[in-house]
């Protein structure tokens, strides 16, 4: 064993035990148990491991088709929530990209060192504030008796308060706010390593500004853009606090459905099945981004 000879007995013991515990008992086995659990029926405690504890696809069938007794063919309630979560997360991701890219480019290529450092520090600060409190701040702004409505009423622009929460405006604003910095930093880091001479050269050769961005800067910053998009999508699709606080009374997020299976439905296998579907959707999204941008996983998770 070269490993043991290199590190000595004590050290290799520590390294192997720590990493084994982490990989086996914290990463791999829990995921496998969750998947295993999702293929089982919801049984009372004393029947687990009994004759009824057989593998079944019932939990997944339920997500697509609902109860056999239902009139509708498909379980539209949950399917709609699922697809809305995915599509809304993609929209949030695109919105964050559009908001971040100009500032990231400005900080990385245009601004001088001192100002860039100040802007970066200012960007980091709100990121340290608790996600729930950030959502709470948005609730204060967007509630029907909130500050925006009060201001609009006071200016006489509207006569009835607008229900931003029900219209999901608050939800999308809050989600794009919550994870915007995870879009900013990867793009900034990528654009920063671009040699400014390339931009100058393109300009001297007569490229219009949008050509420079589309064909010079963005292809160069591809790994950063991919990383930012992946992180923001993952976090939005997996967000729980923001939809709980800012979602309207009728709008559910897929994580909220999962939460309800665990805490109100008391049906853990069903909740596990839904969680697994969400995980698969996220993995597919990452693979899609990796394929679209032609980047590796190592470049995304940095």
């Amino acid at each position, binding site marked *: 064993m070269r490993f043991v000879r290199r590190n000595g007995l*004590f050290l290799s013991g520590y390294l192997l035990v720590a990493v084994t515990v982490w990989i086996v008992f914290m990463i791999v086995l829990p995921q496998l148990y969750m998947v295993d659990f999702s293929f089982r029926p919801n049984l009372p405690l004393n029947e687990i491991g009994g004759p009824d504890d057989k593998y079944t696809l019932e939990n997944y069938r339920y997500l697509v088709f609902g109860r056999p007794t239902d009139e509708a063919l498909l379980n539209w309630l949950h399917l709609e929530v699922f697809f809305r979560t995915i599509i809304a997360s993609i929209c949030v991701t695109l919105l964050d990209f559009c908001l971040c890219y100009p500032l990231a480019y400005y900080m990385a290529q245009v601004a001088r060192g001192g100002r860039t450092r100040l802007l970066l520090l200012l*960007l980091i600060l709100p990121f340290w504030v608790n996600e729930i409190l950030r959502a709470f701040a948005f609730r204060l702004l967007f509630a029907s008796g909130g500050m925006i409505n009060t201001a609009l009423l006071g200016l006489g622009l509207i006569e009835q308060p607008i229900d931003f929460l029900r219209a999901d405006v608050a939800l999308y604003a809050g989600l794009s706010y919550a994870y915007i910095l995870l879009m900013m930093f990867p793009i900034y880091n990528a654009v920063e390593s671009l040699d400014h001479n390339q931009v100058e050269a393109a300009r001297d050769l007569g490229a219009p500004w949008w050509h420079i961005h589309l064909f010079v800067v963005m292809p160069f910053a591809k790994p950063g853009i991919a990383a930012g998009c992946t992180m923001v999508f993952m976090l939005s699709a997996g967000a*729980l606090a923001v939809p709980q606080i800012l979602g309207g009374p009728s709008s559910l997020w897929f994580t909220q459905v999962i939460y309800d299976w665990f805490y109100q439905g008391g049906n853990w296998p069903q909740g596990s099945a839904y969680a697994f579907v969400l995980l698969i959707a996220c993995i597919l999204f990452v693979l899609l981004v990796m394929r679209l941008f032609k980047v590796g996983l190592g470049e995304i998770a940095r």
Partner: protein
Amino acid sequence: MTSQTVLRLMVGFYILLFFAYLFGPLVLMGITAFNANSYPQVTPWEGTTLQWFAELAKDDQLLEGIGNSLWIGLGVICLSVPIGLAGAIIMTQIHRRARPIYYTIIVSPVLTPGVILGISTLVFWDRMGTAFDADYESLFYDGIFLTIIGQSTFISAYCMLVFLARLQRFDYSQEEAALDLGATNVQVFWQILIPFLRPAIFSAAVLAFLTSFENYNTTVFTIQAESTLTTVLAGRVRMGTTPALSALAVIIIGVTLVGAVSYELLRRRESRRQAPGADAVKLKKRFREPQAAAQAPQA
């Protein structure tokens, strides 16, 4: 007015808007904490008050949540810093062929939604508890323990990334020199590797604590009957908005800002000290000062 000036004005306006978006909601929320109005509002201003802060001190549920959050944060540091360190060291030693798959596995928790980490931890330990016939007082069902485990799953990966970044600059000839001079492996580890990694250990511990302290998605599943600051907060915010929550936000923002700024400053000082050429600058300064002093009397 040239087109350059117009462009510059537009960029400035954009940056202004962006930071208004970042800070505006937080600042307004902070202001509502001092308004006597019982619905958190900026207008009408019904008088400046500190009563909402006083209300917090009487809130036992909240205080218990904060206490639990602190303990969980310490537990997460103790678990995820050593694990992250081990993960990073093995990453540098593992066979090149196995490296991508190993990296994919240990980095996967970062890319997994937090709710799924919480659920899988909860289900795994629950099934283990059932398999071992453990009673409900045991660790298998303990909310605090499960939360530490669940959070450490991905916080260890954060720590690993911090250590990996630092290890990339490690000069392995130091290690070889020490071994050639007769040091044992354990001595090399404690006296060369750990001192070199000390700033990274500090960063990783701070990162681990803050991440744990503000985590909600994983915690909400693993915590069960117990409570943490974030779960209490989320429950309160969903029930209704009171200025007491704004007051709490002001305190938390204040504490995290002081922490974040000092962490940022420390980190910068550290990286400046590590930056190539920093030592030379220091040396130059030391040599220039006596010269300057010598020149002063002549002038």
